[in-house]
């Protein structure tokens, strides 16, 4: 199937792909900075900080992984036949 070939092509060109994705991320942040603020709906400080959700996502995602895996290893994870 052609579709599989496209994916293989992308996987072969990981370096270029990474550059494109980084450029995309920068564009996302720029978009948030330049977009016209919707004053009617911007009631709270959350709505007024530029790129607020960028920072929120980076920190939030990092914490979710670290805390999730941390607690799992601390005491949540047991062997698969734990209950017999």
């Amino acid at each position, binding site marked *: *199937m052609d*579709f*599989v070939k496209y*994916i293989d092509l992308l996987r072969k060109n990981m370096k270029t792909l990474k550059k494109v994705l980084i450029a*995309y*991320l920068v564009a*996302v*942040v720029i*978009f*948030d900075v330049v*977009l*016209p*603020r*919707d004053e009617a*709906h*911007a*009631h*709270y400080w*959350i*709505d007024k900080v530029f*790129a607020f*959700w*960028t920072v*929120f*996502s*980076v920190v*939030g*995602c*990092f914490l*979710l*992984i*670290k*805390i*999730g*895996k941390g607690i*799992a290893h601390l*005491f*949540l*994870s*047991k*062997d*698969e036949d*734990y*209950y017999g």
Partner: protein
Amino acid sequence: MDRWVHPAIFFFIGSLLLPFVKGKAKKFLILLIPVLSIIDVAVMQAGIYGSYQFLNINIVFGRVDKLSLVFAWVFVIMAFLGALYALHVKEDGHHVAGSFYIGSSLGAIFAGDYLTLFIFWEVMAFSSVFLVWYRKERRSIEAGFRYLLVHVFGGLLFFTGMMLYYYKTGNFVFDKIFPDNAGIAEYFILAGFSLNAAVLPLHAWLPDAYPEATVEGAVFMCAFTTKTAVYVLARGFPGFEILAILGTAMTVYGVFYAVIENDMRRVLAYHIISQVGYMVAGVGIGTELALNGACAHAFAHILYKALLFMGAGAVLFMAGTAKMSQLGGLYKYMPLTMIFYVVGAISISGFPLFSGFVSKSMIVASAHEKGRLMLMSWMNLAGIGTFLSVGLKVTYFTFFGKEAEIKPKEPPKNMLWAMGLTSTLCFIIGVYPKVLYDLLPFPVEYHPYTLPHLSEMLQILSFTGLVFFLLVKKLQPEAKLNLDMDWFYRKGARVFMKLDERVISVVDSVWGELYRIVGLNLLFKNARISYGFDRKIIDGVVDGSATTVRGAGSIVRKLQTGRIQAYIGLSLFLFFLILWFVLRGM
């Protein structure tokens, strides 16, 4: 239209006809049942139907309004998609259980009083458990029993509340309850409803049972039980602050486990808790926008979660396992399944142009509108976890990542068609949300495609992706079991069994021994005397009657086939026969 036909009828009667047809006719019937119910819902007009007096109690089978209709719509659509996905299943009992499950869910959402609701509520639990048991593995059978016991407990909470409510008000009318008027009766009912919605801490049955269900059964289960519960919460308990808080807690709790779980279907099951959390929170916030959001999200969620379960089920069906620690690189072997799974994953994550974007955001926006910034932030954190777990982790470790030894093929055509159709619906709702918004209980003034919302979602999704790829090694799935609240009853039951073994059974056997020595000897002697009397004298008098009874007994024995599906079929038949007599007499 004056006459109203309850859509559950098609499922109840239709499925009982299934054992009598074969081959293509059977497949046709399996698909015809949901098609008829879709037509039925399409022509339905708002109103009160099927209202009867029963022992001076008013029971209502058909309360049709916008709130019940939006759920009915998605239930019958899902019934069709699920039936298509399960078309290859050979066991009639599986189809019958699925149909009774769907039929009783429809019964529950149209019920206008607690009594009717309760009956359908219980039929739901007792029919859906067969979708777990039909997997026919030891783990499934055990999980099924736990599922049943927990739901019986939930049913008892509901029943207690219902009886207290009757004691207080003198009726069973199921309508909106105001938080200020709620007493112990209402809170019992709320607890019973919450258990089915998997509200913390009554949620552990869900990730325990759903991953052990059959491939096809799980697709049904993920749609109906929790969403029926969302419906009754939206009907009865809007504006209860406790729901706003617990719902938001659920959103984060679910993704937390979804991030660390290994089995694809267990990730998805935990994620249901998260998604239902949004709906419960929406009900708790209680504004028109929030309730619209809860309904819209239930609608969209049923479709994309079923799609995800179909994808994961297809992997399990073809590869023999859904554990990500044993999977990888499947995009080469199951490309279509992968595309459909990814459509489900980006819909649930709220990508623009897909259904999650237009439904989840209504609830988040309602929290924003009410100034509940904490709730809003936690929900958005759960949004990050959604994309991280269901979107990235499962997709990456199943379809990409390190190639595993398992090289499965694409699943049967009916499964692919079901996935394709569901994907299309997710996309249609995403680009043309009006079709969904028009069904909602309140007029919709909300517009999802605004620049700030677009920017917010793009930032959340893109940067979650970035962190995922930076930390991907940390997320490697592990073949482990993670403890949850079910620990209390699974280990607790063991403590009880030990107590039983060591104390109760010792007392019992001492007592038994005593009885054997003293009581039984006397009894035997007594029996021997009366046996002789009976055989020689009584049977001699009414000669032959004992022989006749013995003959009749052997006929009854033939009816008792020992097959559980036959018993259930028979008892349901009797149930409806009795119901018919009762209704006819009124």
